[in-house]
């Protein structure tokens, strides 16, 4: 593995409102109040439309729940009067979601990207002492329950793209499920 693989492969959160993933045509829709206690329930309501054929449904559930959690907590500040809107579509090959909140948008996006880049650089240098400072992303608003890691995982998981809109209060994401094969294509 070359020294720069981490950096070449770098995943960044991008803002791209014109990305096709923001196209809502044919997507199912649900909206929820920003009640932190019900995040798990909302996630289940969404995931229940995923076909039975999808393996690792729990991982999908967890990832969706993280995104909704971000919308409820960091976007809408758990204000039940504010809504979280979710557009979604699943089949055995993909999961496509758009999650929108009524917040002011993810202002720390650039800070997060810089943090992530720094973290990956340190990882590439294998400087484990420094790495300790880059284990999780925290801001002044973070509380003890914020792991600060959800977005790192999200960037890895949503392998078909993870984009914010210009206002940064909506995120569109796509997961492509690997298809089983028994022969060389």
């Amino acid at each position: 593995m070359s020294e720069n693989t981490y950096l070449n492969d770098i995943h960044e959160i991008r803002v791209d409102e014109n990305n096709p993933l923001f196209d809502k045509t044919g997507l199912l829709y649900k909206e929820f109040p920003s009640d932190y206690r019900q995040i798990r329930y909302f996630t289940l309501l969404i995931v229940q439309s995923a076909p039975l054929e999808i393996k690792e449904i729990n991982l999908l559930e967890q990832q969706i729940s993280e995104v909704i959690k971000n919308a409820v907590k960091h976007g809408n500040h758990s204000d039940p009067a504010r809504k979280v809107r979710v557009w979604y579509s699943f089949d055995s090959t993909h999961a496509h979601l758009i999650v929108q909140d009524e917040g002011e948008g993810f202002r720390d996006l650039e800070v997060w990207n810089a943090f992530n880049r720094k973290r990956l650089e340190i990882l590439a240098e294998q400087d484990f002492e420094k790495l300790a400072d880059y284990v999780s992303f925290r801001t002044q608003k973070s509380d003890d329950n914020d792991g600060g890691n959800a977005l790192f995982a999200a960037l890895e998981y949503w392998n078909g793209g993870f984009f914010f809109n210009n206002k940064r209060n909506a995120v569109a994401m796509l997961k492509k499920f690997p298809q089983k094969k028994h022969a060389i294509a």
Partner: protein
Amino acid sequence: MTISSFSQVVESPLLAKLLILASISVIFFYLRRKDAEGHSGSFIASMAFLAVRDVMVALFPVPELFLVSDIIYFCFVLYIFMAPYMVVRPALILVIVLNILLAGLYVARFVFGVAAFLPSWLFGVIPVLDILLVGVFAFIWRNVKKESIARQIVGAIWPVSVPVLLAYAVAAIIFGYGNDLFQRLAVPISYGWFVAAALTSIRMQDDQMVTAVSYYESSIDSLYNLLMNTGPALKGSFTTEDVLASMNEAIVSETHADGGLIFLVDEFEDLIVCKSYVGSFPPPVNLPESLPRKANRVESFMKHVEFRLGEGVFGEVAKTGKNIYIPNVTDDPRIVVNGEEEFLRLASFMAVPLMVEDKIIGVAAVARKNRDNAFTEEDFDRCKLLANFGTLAVSNFFSFLAANEKSGLEQSAGIAAEIQRSIIPKKIPQFPGLGIGAFSMPARGVSGDYFDIIQTRSDRVVCVIGDVAGKGVSAALIMVMVRSILHLITNTNKDIATVLNWVNKGITGKIDLDHYATLGIVAVNINTGEVEYSNASHQALLVYRRSSDSIETLELKSVPIGVERTTEYARKALKLADGDIVVMYTDGIVEAMNEQGKQFGRKGLSQVIVRHRDLAPKEIVNRIKGDLSSFVGSVRQHDDQTVLVLKMKL
């Protein structure tokens, strides 16, 4: 002897000669059908030449012509006996050319008187020398391995043919070609060696067929063993590894190999991964530097080894789909030598792709370690045969697994649907003061909607509608729990919100399963029209008021059942008048989407109700169903859809 009349033809030896030649030719023509090497053709050509010669000589009875034709005939003989051996072909050509030159010289001497000083017996000796040459050659080469049928034939017939032809050539010198006895006896007898050749060819073809039959018999035995092995593996367990292991064992035992490997193409990546390791297989590929060169370490490394397409000798087979057969691996560039220890020393190797139609699904390989016991072509054929049939078995197994998985999913979805069907009321009860209509359409694999109608007192009817989050059997089980609790506690004097509180306490945190359900509940006094309504995050209640001919939407904000044990649900009281309609429904109704991506919505539902307000509840429900179905068109139903319509008749 000039033939000038029919009787002369009959009396001459010509007919006998031609008859003999024709009869033997028939045999060779028959043999030619199965003759892959074309040796029958040389015999047929020789006999055709002799037939022409005999006719010519009968027409022009010149002894010189006979000798010239014999010299050429012996060229055919030389060709038949020596041509099967490539090595002697240049010498053969030289001898034939020499024969022809001498024949030419003899003709020139006869016609133009050239080289008249040469005695004529000298030319008569040529056939004798030819046949002596054949005899010496056949004698010297008698122990050389006879791979082709042609070699086997000439190897078998020379002890008969050479003496016969030698005797014939010598007789020609002694008696002269004009001699009647020679013409009538010696010539026809000399053709007898063709009979020997024909009979020998027949025997050879028979032997060949017997060998082929026994080869196919043993192939069928091998296949039988393969199927016998893989069959029980299928019966006993459902792992790919077991099926491959039995296939591998069959290949190893049928090819008498010391070890066998089977690789399968990875499910997601373009890699081949070792799935079965039988016996002992010295690796023909580079081992990692760090791997200790110990038998057990190398073996366990090989048991899980992976290759990219084109990488190493196994990856090569997976990439090209071509067989690799290396009877002796010494100095073969495709084979990597990792050391001289017994477990690293490979002697003989073959690898074949596992193919379904033209798709490569894996690679099978076998190895021998003893240098004196290399794989033969026959082993290689056997290996290919078993790999082909084994691949069929494996590919059938894959289809079976896929079908099994699918049927497993279908089955669990079926169980859930069955539970749901069995707990939803089959018959909708009707009451003097209250008409009820309902329908519930489950979506495949979801099974989360629930409704119920429970009469708790002569004047009190409780209607419930719910939607369990999640899907399948676990959702159906939650539904069963909710229903059981409801049926136990609904018959109470406490208000209807208390019922929801109790259900929530009964469900929340009790079992280690995420379980949430929305629940809407109304209790109707069928004599007075008084209604109590409580809601656990379910869709808003729609109430049609006849007095104002409009729909009221009743919302009670709350959380679903299952979020917190301490949740206190609110209640609302209302009073219905004659003709008023209450509608309970699940999200599957209002969120049903049409082809344009528009939801049916509460509005769509309200419109149907207002439009059909005068109909009986059962009819209203049917209209909702009809409108919804024409609204969504061909879009797939993704969630259960349930509607409950209550209409007061005071």
